[in-house]
């Protein structure tokens, strides 16, 4: 074994990151976004929406037990799950669109990992102080102060994590009921296990794993390179303006020196612990905090802002030549983004049209083929069908069954007289239906006759049908 092999390490220790506090327009926007997104997350399950006596009054409810999904005025049944698939495809294409136009804006502003990490770092800052204080505390031995501050920090993190995991389950059951049940120990074990898992993931991901989730765990940073091109507007360092970097000495003009005074402000505020001046890299989530930090420094040393900023790679030559860069819109509007937008809007329109065209009654007919047909005493031929009727409506409604397509056939229901089936509110019901052909009718004598079974609601114009086959004696 060579000495090289023996010196290998099996792991790389994480370099702890202590982002410095920063003020600026991006930071302010991120706080507002954070408040908005957390607000949506916590408030949504508590919004009420009256749907009548037979349906839940929660505006957004994923009722997995009963397999019904409510979103304000929309109710989705499992067989309509393509709406959700469509929304997921739209979310995917939307992500492509934003990444190709504006780089990793999802990662930097909207990803839950970023939002919760931001919140956890802020808690850390409140309790332990800013970067230098935290660094000192980190390097310190375990004194009473360190133990006190760390346990307080972990407690607050854990409470936030519990509130996060706790809010999640409200989307899957009636929120006020579940809230009481959770605290009185009566909730279903699944609810407690879900809360526990999400509490622990939030606590660990937001408090300890942080940037490692993005670098090691998340596939998206590796995919989005394919979405970006030289017209993508993303965060970058204008090296042609900043280099050669060097410390600024008072009263000394340094003509050979660039605008970057190597103050490390951009590195110190970075929650990913990287140096944006190294160029675009996997670990950069484009959170914009380095822009705020650098702009602040530029203001103070009397240089124009934007040494670090949103820029497109294709503008580099132009900017080097001292020309003004192309406008934002000319970067954003290009065949790629237009294609994404058209696809996105097309799917969205199709979904909306489908949503308005869909019927609130549905029927499927499965013929019973064991046996194919039954001959009755008088020679008549009978076929049986399982008719599944879906009443996607908040009231129980009478479904009237009828048939067309063949002469000499009568329709009857198993177990009850008449042709009306009462289907409970928001339920489906299976009813066996018999079609009986007169002994001498063509359907009874023949091989197969196509028939159509109809269902309608008493007093409503809409009718639906299902086509099936009637088997005669001649099989």
């Amino acid at each position: 074994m060579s000495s090289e092999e023996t010196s290998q390490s099996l792991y790389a220790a994480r370099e702890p990151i202590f982002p410095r506090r920063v003020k600026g327009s991006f930071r302010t926007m991120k706080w507002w976004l954070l408040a908005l997104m957390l607000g949506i997350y916590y408030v949504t399950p508590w919004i009420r929406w009256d749907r009548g006596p037979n349906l839940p009054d929660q505006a957004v409810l994923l009722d997995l037990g009963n397999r019904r999904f409510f979103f304000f005025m929309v109710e989705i049944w499992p067989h309509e799950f393509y709406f959700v698939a469509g929304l997921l495809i739209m979310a995917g294409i939307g992500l492509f669109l934003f990444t190709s136009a504006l780089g990793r804006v999802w990662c930097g502003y909207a990803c839950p990992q970023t939002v919760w990490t931001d919140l956890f770092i802020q808690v850390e800052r409140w309790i332990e102080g800013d970067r230098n204080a935290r660094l000192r505390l980190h390097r310190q031995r375990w004194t009473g102060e360190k133990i006190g501050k760390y346990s307080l920090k972990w407690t607050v993190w854990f409470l936030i994590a519990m509130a996060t995991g706790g809010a999640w389950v409200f989307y899957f059951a009636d929120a006020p009921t579940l809230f009481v049940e959770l605290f009185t120990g009566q909730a279903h074990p699944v609810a407690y296990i879900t809360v526990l898992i999400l509490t622990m993931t939030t606590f660990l991901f937001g408090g300890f794993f942080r940037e490692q989730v993005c670098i090691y765990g998340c596939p998206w940073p590796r995919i989005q390179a394919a979405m970006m091109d030289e017209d993508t507007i993303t965060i970058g360092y204008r090296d042609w303006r900043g280099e050669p970097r060097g410390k600024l000495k008072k009263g000394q003009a340094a003509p050979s020196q660039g605008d970057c005074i190597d103050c490390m402000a951009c590195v110190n505020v970075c929650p990913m612990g990287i140096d944006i001046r190294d160029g675009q890299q996997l670990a950069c989530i484009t959170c914009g905090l380095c822009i705020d930090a650098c702009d602040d420094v530029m203001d103070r040393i009397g240089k124009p802002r934007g040494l670090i900023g949103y820029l497109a790679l294709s503008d580099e030559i132009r900017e080097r030549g001292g020309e003004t860069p192309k406008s934002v819109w000319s970067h954003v509007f290009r065949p790629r983004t237009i294609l994404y937008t058209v696809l996105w809007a097309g799917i969205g329109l199709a979904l909306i049209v489908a949503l308005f065209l869909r019927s609130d009654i549905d029927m499927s007919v499965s013929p019973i083929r064991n046996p194919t047909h039954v001959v009755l005493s008088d020679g008549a031929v009978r076929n049986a069908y399982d008719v599944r009727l879906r009443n996607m409506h908040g009231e129980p409604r009478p479904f009237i069954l009828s048939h067309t397509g063949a002469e000499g056939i009568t329709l009857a229901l198993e177990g009850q007289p008449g042709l009306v089936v009462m289907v409970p509110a928001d339920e489906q019901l299976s009813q066996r239906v018999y079609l009986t052909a007169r002994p001498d009718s063509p359907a009874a004598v023949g091989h197969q006759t196509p028939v159509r079974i109809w269902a309608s609601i008493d007093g409503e114009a809409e009718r639906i049908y299902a086509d099936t086959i009637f088997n005669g004696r001649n099989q």
Partner: protein
Amino acid sequence: MADNPKEKITPASRQYPDPQSKLKQDPPTTGHSWDGIEEYDNPMPRWWVWIFLITVVWSVGYWIAYPAWPGIQSATSGLLGYSSRANVAAEIDEFEARNETWFAQLVETDLDAIREDPDLHRFAVNAGASVFAAQCSQCHGTGGAGVQAAGYPNLLNDAWLWGGTMEDITTTVTWGIRNDDYPEARWSQMPAFGVDGLLDDQEITEITHYVLRMSGQDHDEALADAGAEEYEWNCASCHGDGGEGDYELGAPALNNQVWFYGGSEEAIRHSIYYSRFGVMPGFETRLREAEIRAVAAYVHQLGGGQ
């Protein structure tokens, strides 16, 4: 001067290293080399290694707590006494305990009133379907269609040998048909008119044509006329004057389109000459009363219930 970025931006003034050059520096390698292809040393994060080590420790505890190591006869049983087979048995017990109230209700409820309680009826039909699949489908078919022309009755149509009410079906299932084990079992026997010499060939042919006429099939009018009197003497006491059959005696109707052993001239002649009838076991000891009632409810709703 320095405030004006334009003046600095000339390629000649770029003295700093190309940012790309950083990427050209290779990370350390493991020292492995295959035909000149080397392996980069990109170590895993520490927490990852820790999780790996914890799973190793966990597996040792798992071996001790759960069944793990295979032996010759069986595997080590583990300290927790876990057994997936015992879990299944417990789950079955739990389900049966839950069904017990339904079964009790099924026994208490009047046979014809089962249908009036939709929940009870649904339970009875579902429970009866599984009983039917296990106990009845071997002869009557999984769909209840029997075996046509071979004597296993079709349970879906409106023709019955011994009656199609809930009461009739329950009696048939409980005691069986022509079953020596139970005196309560239904019993009847048609004479073998040909074998026993009760009728000669000509008379049997005449009765055959008479039966063909009764069921509306092609027949010889003269033979049928001649068979009318023979039928009245020999057959009408059980099958009825008009061939309408008799549930009390298990005598099938002959004036309809449903045949247990076939309705052709040959098949009818064979039945008269040799006599044909089926047997069915009783389920009094094999099924509980509630299960018998459940399977009766299932058969009753197959399409022929009376």
